[in-house]
C-alpha cells in the first residue's frame, strides 16, 4: 500500500513538472537570429581582446571584423521566425501528458514489476527469520554471520563443520574443522571429519594430509571404525595390499556383521585379493583410478585390463622415451602393484632419457625418493 502511495506521489510530481512549462503563458520567444547575432557580437569582442593582448595583427583583425560583420548583417536581415505564444496545441499537449504519463507508467510497470514486493536486505533477513528452523541454509547463513564477527568461537565452527560436510560444501567444512581443532582441541570425530572433508575434496583419494587426520583420530580413539576404514583404504590406494588386507580384516573382526560399512569392507577385501593375485604375476600396474575401476570388474577382466594397460604404456615409452609423464606413471604403477624391483628397473630406463639437471630428471628423482626407491635427501 505504502508503495502505491509513494508511486502516486512520484507520478503526480513528474506530471506536474511536465505540465508547468505547457501551462505557463509563454513569454515572448527570442527569434533564432537574435541568438546568432549575439554570438557574432561576442566574436567581435573577442577580436578586440585578441588585438589588446597582441595575439593578432591589426590587419588580420580588420579582415576578421569584416567577416564577422558580414555574418552579423545577414543575421539581422533575415529574422523571419517568431514563436507563437500559448495555443490550442498546448492544451492538447496537456491532456496528452495527463493521460499518457500515469497510464503508461502504471501499465508498463504492472507488466514488468512485482508491485509491493518488499526489499530483502541480507542483514534484515538473517535477523528476521531466526525461528524458521526448516531452512538449513538460513541457519548456516546466520551462523556464518555470527562467525564472521566472532571468528574465534570454536563451538560455532564445531557445529557448522558437519553441516557443511553434509551440504557438500567440503572446502568450507575443511576450514570449519581446522578452526574447531585449533580452538577447541583435537578430538576423534573432528579429526575424522577433517579427513572426510579432505578425501571428498581430492575426489576419493586418501591424501597424506587426510591420512594424518585419520591417524590422529585413531590415536585419540583406537578402533573407531571410520578412521580404521579410511586408513585401510589409504593403504590399498598406495598399493600396500598386504597391509591393507590386514587392516580391513581387523576392522571386519571388530565390527558387528550387520554394521553399515561391512558391505564396503567386503568389497574392498575382494578387490585387494584380486590385486594380490595379479601382483603375483609378472604384470604391470595402473594408477589409483584404474584400480578403483578395476574393483567393479571380475578378476579375469581386471587382470586383463591391468596387464594391457601397463604393457601398452611400456611399449609406448620404448617408442617415445621422452614422455616424462608416461615414465612417472609407469614407475608409479609398479609401485602401486607392490613391485619395487620392476619400478626400479623402469626408473633406470627412464633416467637414461633425461640429462643431468634437466627438469625431467629432477621429477623422476623426486618420484623415486617419494616411493623410497632411492634414499630420501634430508630436508632442511
Amino acid at each position, binding site marked *: 500500500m505504502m*508503495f502505491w502511495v*509513494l508511486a502516486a506521489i*512520484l*507520478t503526480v510530481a*513528474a506530471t506536474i*513538472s*511536465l505540465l508547468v*512549462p*505547457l*501551462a*505557463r503563458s509563454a513569454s515572448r*520567444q*527570442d527569434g*533564432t537570429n*537574435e*541568438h546568432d547575432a*549575439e*554570438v*557574432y557580437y*561576442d566574436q567581435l*569582442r*573577442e577580436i578586440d581582446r585578441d588585438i589588446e*593582448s*597582441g595575439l593578432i595583427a591589426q590587419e588580420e583583425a580588420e579582415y576578421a571584423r569584416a*567577416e564577422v560583420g558580414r*555574418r552579423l548583417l545577414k543575421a539581422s536581415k533575415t529574422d523571419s*521566425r517568431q*514563436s*507563437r*505564444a*500559448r*495555443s490550442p*496545441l498546448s492544451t492538447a*499537449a496537456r491532456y*496528452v*501528458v495527463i493521460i*499518457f*504519463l500515469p497510464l*503508461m*507508467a502504471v501499465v*508498463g*510497470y504492472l507488466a*514488468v*514489476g*512485482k508491485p*509491493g*514486493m*518488499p*526489499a*530483502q536486505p*541480507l*542483514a534484515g*533477513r538473517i535477523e528476521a527469520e531466526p525461528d524458521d528452523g526448516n531452512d538449513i*541454509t*538460513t541457519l*548456516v*547463513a546466520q551462523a556464518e554471520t555470527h562467525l564472521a564477527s566472532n571468528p574465534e568461537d570454536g563451538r560455532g565452527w564445531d557445529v557448522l563443520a558437519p553441516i557443511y560436510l553434509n551440504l557438500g560444501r567440503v572446502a568450507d567444512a575443511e576450514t570449519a574443522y581446522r578452526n574447531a581443532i585449533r580452538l577447541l582441541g583435537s578430538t576423534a570425530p573432528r579429526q575424522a571429519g577433517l579427513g572426510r572433508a579432505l578425501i571428498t575434496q581430492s575426489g576419493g583419494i586418501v591424501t597424506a594430509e587426510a591420512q594424518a587426520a585419520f591417524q590422529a583420530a585413531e590415536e585419540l580413539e583406537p578402533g573407531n571404525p571410520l578412521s580404521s576404514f579410511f586408513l585401510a583404504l589409504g593403504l590399498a590406494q598406495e598399493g600396500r595390499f598386504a597391509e591393507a588386507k590386514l587392516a580391513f580384516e581387523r576392522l571386519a573382526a571388530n565390527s558387528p556383521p550387520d554394521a553399515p560399512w561391512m558391505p564396503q569392507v567386503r568389497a574392498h577385501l575382494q578387490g585387494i585379493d584380486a590385486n594380490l593375485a595379479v601382483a603375483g604375476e609378472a604384470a604391470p600396474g595402473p594408477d589409483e583410478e584404474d584400480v578403483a575401476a578395476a574393483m567393479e570388474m571380475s578378476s579375469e577382466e581386471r587382470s586383463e585390463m591391468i596387464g594391457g594397460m601397463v604393457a601398452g604404456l611400456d611399449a609406448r615409452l620404448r617408442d617415445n622415451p621422452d614422455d616424462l609423464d608416461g615414465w612417472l606413471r609407469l614407475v608409479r604403477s609398479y609401485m602401486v602393484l607392490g613391485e619395487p624391483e620392476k619400478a626400479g628397473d623402469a626408473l633406470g630406463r627412464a633416467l637414461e632419457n633425461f640429462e643431468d639437471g634437466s*627438469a625431467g630428471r*629432477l621429477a623422476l628423482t*623426486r618420484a623415486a625418493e617419494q616411493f623410497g626407491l632411492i634414499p630420501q635427501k634430508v630436508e632442511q
Partner: protein
Amino acid sequence: MIVELGHYALVMALAVALLQSVLPVIGSVRQDAGLMAMAPAAAVTSFFLVLLAFAALTASYVTSDFSVQNVWENSHSLKPMIYKISGVWGNHEGSMLLWILILVFFSALVAFFGGNLPAALKANALAVQAWITSAFLLFVLLTSNPFQRLTPAPIEGRDLNPILQDVGLAIHPPLLYLGYVGFSICFSFAVAALIDGRIDAAWARWVRPWTLAAWTALTAGIAMGSYWAYYELGWGGWWFWDPVENASFMPWLAGTALLHSALVMEKREALKIWTVLLAIITFSLSLLGTFLVRSGVLTSVHAFATDPTRGVFILGILVIFIGGAFTLFALRAQSLKHGGLFAPVSREGALVLNNLFLTTATLTVLVGTLYPLVLEALTGSKISVGPPFFNLTFGPLMVPLLLAVPFGPLLAWKRGDLLAVCQRLYAAAGISLLVALAVVYFSTGAPVMAALGIAIGAWLICGSLTDLAYRAGAGRAGLPVMWQRLKGLPRSAFGTALAHFGLGVSVIGIVAVTAFSTEQVMTLKPGEQAVSGPFALEFEGLRPNTGPNYTELQGRFAVSRDGAQFATITAAKRVYTARRMPTTEAGILTIGPSQLYVALGDETPDGTVVRIWWKPWVTFIWFGTVFMSVGGIVSLLDRRLRVGAPAASKARAATAGQAT
C-alpha cells in the same frame, strides 16, 4: 519497496522520454513556445527518475538484497563496500542503467545550461536525446532489466567476476560512458540542425565544448582501461588491438577529428556540413562499440552474459539511429548553407589535414575490427587481425599526422605562411633531432625506428612549447612582457599546448616500451635470482595470505640495483572463494617513469614460473593521456566557450531571463 519504486521510476522515465521525443518536435514545427519549453522540463524530470532507479539498484547492492536477481548474480555479502557499489555497473544490466543515467544527465545539462540556445534548436536536440533515451530504456526494460526479482531470495550471492573487483571498475566505465554518451549531445545537435534545416552560429559554439567534454572523459576512460588491463590481466601489455579496445578507440579518433573540425566551424563558419557528418559518425561509432561489446559478437571481459535477443535489439537501435541520421543527412545536407573558404596553407587547412588523417585512421581501425567478424559471419572461417595489421596501417598513418601537429597551432587562420612557421619550429626540430641522436648514441644498436619515434614525441612536446613561446612573443619582447602576455593567453591556447604536449609524452612512452622493454620467463626457486634491465630480483618464496573474499599465494621478490636492495615486489595468485576463480595479481614496481612488472605462473617441481618485464618509460603512455585530459579541461574552462551565450550581454539579460 525501494527496489520496486526504482523499477517504477524507470518505467515512468520511459513514459517521460517518449513524451519528450514527440511533443517538442511538434512544438518546433508549429512554433509553439509551450511545447518547446516542455523539453528541458522533461529532460530534468527523466534525469531524476533514472537517478532514483539507479539509487534503488545501488541500495540493493549495498544491503546485499539477493531478492534482486542482478544483485544475486553479481554480488556477495562479504565483498568490500567499494566493490559492492562499483559492482552495480560491473555487469550488463547495471552498466546499461549507468549508460542511460549518463545519457539523461547530459540531457539535463543541456536543459540547464541551454538557456541561451535558440528555442527550436534546444527543443529538437532534447527530443533527439529523448529518442536515444527511449530506445535504450526499452532495451533495458525488455531485455536487460536489472530489477528482476527472485522468490525465495537466495541467501548468498554469486559474487562479482574477480577480474572486475578492482578500483579500475569504479573509474573506467563511468569515464568511458561519459565519453561515449557525451558524443550523443553532438549527435543530437547535428540531427536537430538537420531537422531544422539550418545551422545556427550558436550550434557551432555549442558543439565544441560538448565534444571537448566528451573527448576529455573518453581519453581518461580509455587510458584508465588500458592501465587496468595492463596491471590486472598480468600479460604486461597496455594495448592489444582487441576489438573491444578498438570499439572505444574509434569514437576517440573520430571525436578527435570532430574536436578539430568544430574549431574551424566555430572560428570560420567553414566545414559546417563536414562537422555535422562527423558528429553523426562519432556517436554512431559509440553505438557500434556498445553493440559489439554487448551483443555477444565478441567474447571478452566486457561481454558479460550474452543473449541473442539483446544483440538483435541493439542492432535494431544501431540501424535505426545510424541509418536514420545518415538518411536525414543525405536529404538535408544540400540545403545547409556552406561556410567560408580558405587557403590550403592556413590553420583551417592544417585542421582539414588532421581530419583527413584521423578519419582514415578511424576507417582503418573499423575495417580491422569488423572484417574478421563479417568474414566469420559469412564464411564461418575465423581469422585474426592482430597487431601486425594495425601496426602496418595505423602506424604509418600516424607518423605524418604527428609530424604535422606542431604546425597547426602556429599557422594563422585563413592565410598562413608555412615558411615562417617552419622558421619558428627550427628550435623544436633541432631539439628533437638532438634527442634522436642521443638515443641512437646511448643505445648503440637500438633500432633506428625507435630513435625516430622518440624524436617524433620530442617534436610534439617541443612544438607545443614553441607554440606557447611564440604566442607570448619570444624573441620579440622581454621576459616580463612575455610573462604578461603568457598570462593573458586564452585558456584554450594552453589546452591545445597541453594536449599536444601530452600526445608527445604518450608517443615517447609507446615507442620506448615497444623498442626497449625486455621480457623473461623463468622458473625460480626461493633464493634464486633473476636479472631484468639494470635490476636483480631475488625470489623470497611463496606465502599464503587471506583477503576478505579470496585467498592468495604471494610471491615476494627483493629488488636490488648494484647489489643494494631498495624495494620489494609482491605478486600473487588469487583464488576468489565464491566463484573458485583464480586470478593473477601482477607485482609492479615503479622506478622513475619505468616499471618492473612481475607475474606469477604455475608451480612446477623446479620452482615457480615467473614472468618478469622491464618496461622503460612505460608510465609516459598514461601520463601523456593525463596531460591530454587536463588540456581538455583547461580548454573547457576557457571564457570564450561560456560566452557563446547571448545571456552574457547586459542588454539582453532581461529578455533572456524571461525566456528561461
